[in-house]
């Protein structure tokens, strides 16, 4: 019933690497299957342009899901990412429309994200409330603030210069993809190579042990929520650059997509487990699915059905390739 063959017991090092890649390999197999199916059914699916589309369409969810992954690893969850993004978007946008320099407006938007994350983190780490409920509460609160701030109206007329920042491309890839790739790289380094990454895994894996070992529990959790807030705000900047407008209702149900991406990528909602590579693959799986179903002009009810079934199927494939761990 164990996921490791007996022979590997003798070489735990190799075994460890093996385990690692097995997990992400499961997700990768899922992606490959989905790509193959759509490739067979949809002419032009593998066109370079379409593949870039998929990446671009996955980038916002990937950005959120990376923050979500860190929070999930720490043993928490962040349901408030959508409203955090909305609040950040409308504030940046109204500053931009008022003529504030881009850098300042973007900085302000990102600061809002950090602040939203900080509040979540404090309520979880210092006050000791359950993450699900804290962020369920702030989900409503932040959304309400965004609506009140704008009176419910979208903020329109973002300066073209600002939009150009996020709409350009580099080496043939859209800026949003480049930005999110950079974020993913940083997240990977943070998780794999820095003390903070270890602390996250430790806090989520065994909080008591982490505390006794002197890990700064509260700071680690708060940092995770702040990063999640920051990335939600970054996603918001990318999105408003793309759409040219910021709406207070932006980001509705983003949290579910982000959680789904992280979970498909192997994060455990029990904490202590999660992978940056897996999460990115998870986001791309979801993006591919949306893209493919749209190209196939699948009727909306059946798209919903496909979404549900593919989440289940991805988890099943994942389960089969990696065992219970």
């Amino acid at each position: 019933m164990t996921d490791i063959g007996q022979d590997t017991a003798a070489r735990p090092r190799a075994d460890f690497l093996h385990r690692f890649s097995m997990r992400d390999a499961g997700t990768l197999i899922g992606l490959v299957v989905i790509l193959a199916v759509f490739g067979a059914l949809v002419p032009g699916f593998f066109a370079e342009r379409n593949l870039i589309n998929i990446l671009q369409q996955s980038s916002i969810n990937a950005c959120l899901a990376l923050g979500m992954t860190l929070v999930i690893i720490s043993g928490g969850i962040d349901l408030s990412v959508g409203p955090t993004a909305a609040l950040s978007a409308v504030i940046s946008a109204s500053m931009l429309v008022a003529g504030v320099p881009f850098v300042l407006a973007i900085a302000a938007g990102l600061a809002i994200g950090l602040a939203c994350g900080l509040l979540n983190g404090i309520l979880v780490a210092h006050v000791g409330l359950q993450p699900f409920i804290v962020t369920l509460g702030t989900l409503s609160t932040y959304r309400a603030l965004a609506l009140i701030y704008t009176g419910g109206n979208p903020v329109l007329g973002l300066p073209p210069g600002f939009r150009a920042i996020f709409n350009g491309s580099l080496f043939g890839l859209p800026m949003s993809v480049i930005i999110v790739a950079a974020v993913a790289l940083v997240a990977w380094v943070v998780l794999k190579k820095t003390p903070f990454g270890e602390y996250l895994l430790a806090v989520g894996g065994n909080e008591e042990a982490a505390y006794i070992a002197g890990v700064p529990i509260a700071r680690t959790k708060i940092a995770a929520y702040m990063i999640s807030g920051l990335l939600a705000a970054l996603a918001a900047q990318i999105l408003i650059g793309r759409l040219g407008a910021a709406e207070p209702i932006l980001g509705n149900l983003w949290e579910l997509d982000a959680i789904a991406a992280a979970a498909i990528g192997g994060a455990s909602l029990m904490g202590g487990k999660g992978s940056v590579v897996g999460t990115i693959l998870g986001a791309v799986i979801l993006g591919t699915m949306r893209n493919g179903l749209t190209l196939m002009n699948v009727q909306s009810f059946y798209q919903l059905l496909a979404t549900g079934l593919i989440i289940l199927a991805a988890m099943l494939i994942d389960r089969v390739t990696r065992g219970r761990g």
Partner: protein
Amino acid sequence: MPVPRLQFESISKVFPAVRALNDVSFSVGAGEIHGLLGENGAGKSTLLRILSGVYRPTAGSVLIDGRPVTLNNPVAARAAGVAMIHQELQQVPRLSVAQNMFLGHPLTRGGVFVARREQERRAASALAAIDPSIDPAAPLGSLKVAQRQIVEIARALLDRARIVAMDEPTSSLTPSEFERLAQVIAGLARDGVAVVYVSHKLDEVFGICQRATIMRDGVVVDSVDLAKVSEKAVVAMMVGRELAQEQHRSHASGDVRLSVRGLASAAKVRDVSFGLHRGEVLGIAGLVGSGRTELLRLLAGADRASAGTIEIDGKSVKLSSPREAIAAGIGLVPEERKREGIVPLRSISSNMALASMSVFAPRGVIDHTKLKQVASEKMKRVNLRPFLLDRPIRLFSGGNQQKAIIGRWLAAGTRILLFDEPTRGIDVGAKAEIYHLIEELAAEGHSVVVVSSELPEVIRLADRVLVMRDGAVAAELDRASLSEQAIAAHAIPQTKMQAGQTHAGRSAGPQARQ
């Protein structure tokens, strides 16, 4: 007279509904190895948790080198020079051994990145003193309990601490590993470190400690010079009465209750066959990793067998889940109490009743009056302390948790009891009670299997002993041929014996100890 390295001054600690420590004072000098003894629940762990900054005392203070120190959290305690090995393993299974050892204070390159290699190098050298075979890069979760405990010890050695507190560091270790630990501790003492050593194994304490403090129910009974007192006297101080030295008595009768043939598992157990009689106590000895736990898990239905047959009272049974095993009359008292034994938030009664719902709820609704009555009766029999049946079990000491788990099978009317390391982390008083209990059960006609790494325990209890090696039965010893040497001789792989390695049992004899 020099200032003692460590002084406890009038420490008290009150938990909800329990006064765990009351006015505890004693001191430990630099270079001294100081035993801390007491029954389960005496307050030893609580005191050490105060020393290591996990709990704050309700009253009193801790002095290091004569100066009062504030130990508000584990970081402060570490900064004050305290290193601690906790009774319960405090580890993160998904991190590597080295990452666990450096958790909370990792070595870094340029203050940014974790210096993995350097950590692993240093971890390896700390581990080398006790068990060089542990790979510091392996995920901790892949290690066995004993190895994990060694990692825990090695972690405490990494710090150049002034005070090292060890709360039952050897509960899963074999004697040979203890031998090496003893040398390490002696080395610490030579360097002027003050060591506080908690163990229920009195011979260990007498072997390495100069002085010891004995606690009972949260108060200090006395601090004694171990050279000047007998083990018996210490035990009397711990339990507050004299313990009679009991002799083995056999209650085995003719008929075979459990018959196992060719049992094997995918992972470890190979072709195990034996019979277990009515009223018999069967001991199973072997080295760590020889497959004893796994054999018990097969019998308890917790793991699936890949081959073999099991018969109870001559009828073939299939044990594919603990539920089926329980229905067939088999119950397991597991090795890892916290993980496999207790439901922490639930009361003693609930934990006890879990396996016998059909008894307490014959018509689908639990008869709480009956439950109360049975719980009270069984818990009196095992001498639960404090006697609070409705208190969540997580608030009890390990020994008392164990008693509740045993009570679970008493309540379920189980006929075949499987004990895996039944007295691990359990004090002498309770240990004697449990031995007595096991004999009583046998006398009542129960059949008992006891897996233990403590050879005296096996010899004390067993009518017959199976020695396991590499998942198979290497020998079957009856009482007449039962000795620690005999067990050790069969338990150790031949090649290792020839190489002169000392993986032998506890008192495996002078030749094994060299």
